[in-house]
């Protein structure tokens, strides 16, 4: 296992004023665990507010987690590293942002943007950096001449390529892709996705691929995790999840892939209401929307388990549904 995350928790306190004690908390991430083999892609899918972006930021310690362990390569726990060692580890992990317009410093030359991760680590001469920039840009399908331009001279898709070039500059073994194509035009999305796949094949990079577009996540991932209210409710190999989704939420999401599905009663009657992350309910958080809810579901949140298979689900009554999945 290249990446092993266990028990990730993050709760944001809601403060009123400087000295008021924090009473309420936003339970953004509540015990997330997963692992990724080297060179493979784990996709995380979920709707807005489910905690997927927070999870991504926690891994790189852009935000500090409240609890959890992150085993990465030879490092036992990235979360307990001191600042200076963290800097070194960060060069092995990188991040691609969703918004191509906000993730590049508008006042910096592209050349400086893509080599920034190199610049703070050890001394490379100006010439070396220029050469490296040209190399990186070509690698992502741009031209070396682009290194002397500013971000605003490029389109959204090209900017994402620049972002990817920047992520590659420090030779990372792990890249977190946070909704990398959601802000792009449809006709460009596949260009970028293909680029990411090619890079993975060539360099053996492990990806954590986050998106809310189910079809894209299915396509890109080897393994997939479905998140809801800060927890993983189902996880397993993508194809299997697609063929036999077990959690009612996953089943709902898959149904929405098909526009004709609006006639389906499951979709039609769905209230779409997500419980508050502040007053986090006891028991299964999907209860209000679940077509097969029972009293048992209110006792405690079902554990994520898979009976020895790779396919895990957090539900007391998984699988059973009107026609879409195998019966137990």
């Amino acid at each position: 296992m290249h990446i092993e995350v266990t028990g990730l928790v993050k709760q944001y306190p809601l403060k009123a004023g400087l000295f008021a004690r924090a009473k309420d908390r936003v339970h953004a991430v509540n015990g997330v665990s997963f692992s990724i083999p080297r060179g493979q892609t784990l996709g995380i899918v979920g709707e807005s507010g489910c905690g997927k972006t927070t999870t991504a930021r926690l891994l790189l310690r852009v935000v500090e987690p409240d609890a959890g362990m992150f085993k990465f390569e030879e490092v036992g726990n990235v979360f307990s590293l001191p600042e200076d060692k963290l800097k070194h580890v960060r060069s092995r992990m990188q991040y691609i942002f969703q918004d191509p317009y906000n993730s590049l410093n508008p006042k910096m030359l592209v050349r400086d943007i893509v080599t920034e991760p190199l610049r703070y680590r050890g001394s490379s001469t100006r010439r070396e950096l220029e050469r490296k920039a040209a190399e990186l840009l070509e690698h992502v399908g741009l031209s070396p001449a682009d290194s002397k331009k500013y971000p605003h001279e490029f389109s959204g898709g090209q900017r994402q390529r620049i972002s990817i070039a920047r992520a590659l500059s420090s030779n990372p073994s792990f890249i977190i892709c946070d909704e990398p194509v959601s802000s792009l035009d449809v006709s460009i999305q596949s260009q970028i996705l293909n680029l990411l796949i090619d890079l993975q094949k060539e360099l053996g990079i492990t990806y954590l691929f986050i998106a809310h577009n189910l079809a894209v996540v299915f396509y890109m991932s080897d393994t997939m995790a479905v998140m809801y209210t800060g927890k993983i409710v189902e996880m397993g190999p993508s194809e299997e999840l697609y063929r036999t989704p077990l959690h009612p939420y996953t089943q709902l999401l898959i149904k929405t892939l098909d526009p004709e599905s609006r006639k389906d009663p499951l979709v039609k009657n769905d209230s779409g209401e997500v419980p508050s992350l502040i007053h986090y309910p006891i028991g299964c958080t999907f209860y209000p929307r679940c077509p097969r809810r029972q009293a048992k579901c209110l006792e405690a949140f079902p554990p994520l388990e898979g009976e020895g298979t790779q396919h895990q689900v957090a539900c007391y009554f998984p699988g059973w549904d009107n026609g879409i999945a195998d019966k137990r």
Partner: protein
Amino acid sequence: MNPSILQIENLTTEFQTVTHRTPAVEGLNLTLRENEILGVAGESGCGKSVTILSVLRLLPPNGAIHRKSKILYQGKDLTQLPEKEMNSLRGKDLSIVFQEPMGSFNPLFPVGKQIVEVIRTHEPEVPVKQALERATELFRQVRIPHPELRIQDYPFQFSGGMLQRALIALALACSPRILFADEPTTALDASTQIGILDLLLERKEATGMSIFFVSHDLSLLEGISDRICVLYAGRMVEACTAKELHTYPLHPYTQDLLEAVPRKGTFKKEKRLYSIQGKVPDPQNRPIGCKYHPRCSKAFERCRKEEPDLFGKESHLVRCWLYVDAH
């Protein structure tokens, strides 16, 4: 075929920037029929949002509709209408739902009150109590639970999906004949999207209104529209029924668009994603000849020089040299 209710003829809308004038949409010809959902598909820079703003005359100060353009509604040319008359049409006959519900409501007033305001602006004889009842009924129609309580809530108390339903309620308050929807579901999660689309369909059937539905998601439009027209770089490149678009897309752009999106049930192990090379042209830098030719895998000499007209029969029009017998 239903009679037409809105006719856009030769619409050209230009924007004046510091240095020059750019046409956002050029020579657009569209017909919207009664009780029909027209899907308008396209990506950024194609002019679909500008079209809506032009019809409703909501363009920013530096935008102007060309003199030769005509927008006919009920026999009147909307481009020539005095502002006062236009105002009485907006919100009543012609209503609009935008992409961002948060930006469409005043955060300082309860949502119900804002609906009442719209009703009473167009129908001043309606007393407040009755208007409030109508608002509650509208909330019920858009399937907001506990409507009588919710109309007293402020916009921030609604979730994204619920607020969009409230926005639709607002748009439907005075029973419009045409509803303009500009990416109404793009900002919402997939599970809520379906509900909203369903709602729009239901309301269309119940009231007989027409919907001018703009979106970049072609598959979404296929699911909800009667007819679809595809815009690219300010021009309409194809127009036909939704069914035909699904089975016989003619224009290379339409075909590419349908191909390039990962469809459900495809995985990277199986096949590589089809991708369209190049990028959507800047409004200032549109190519000569056919606007799509730099990216088109089927382009030939004529495409580079001359821009084709719309060819074909009424039920299926396409702007492409491939379908013309001339050489």
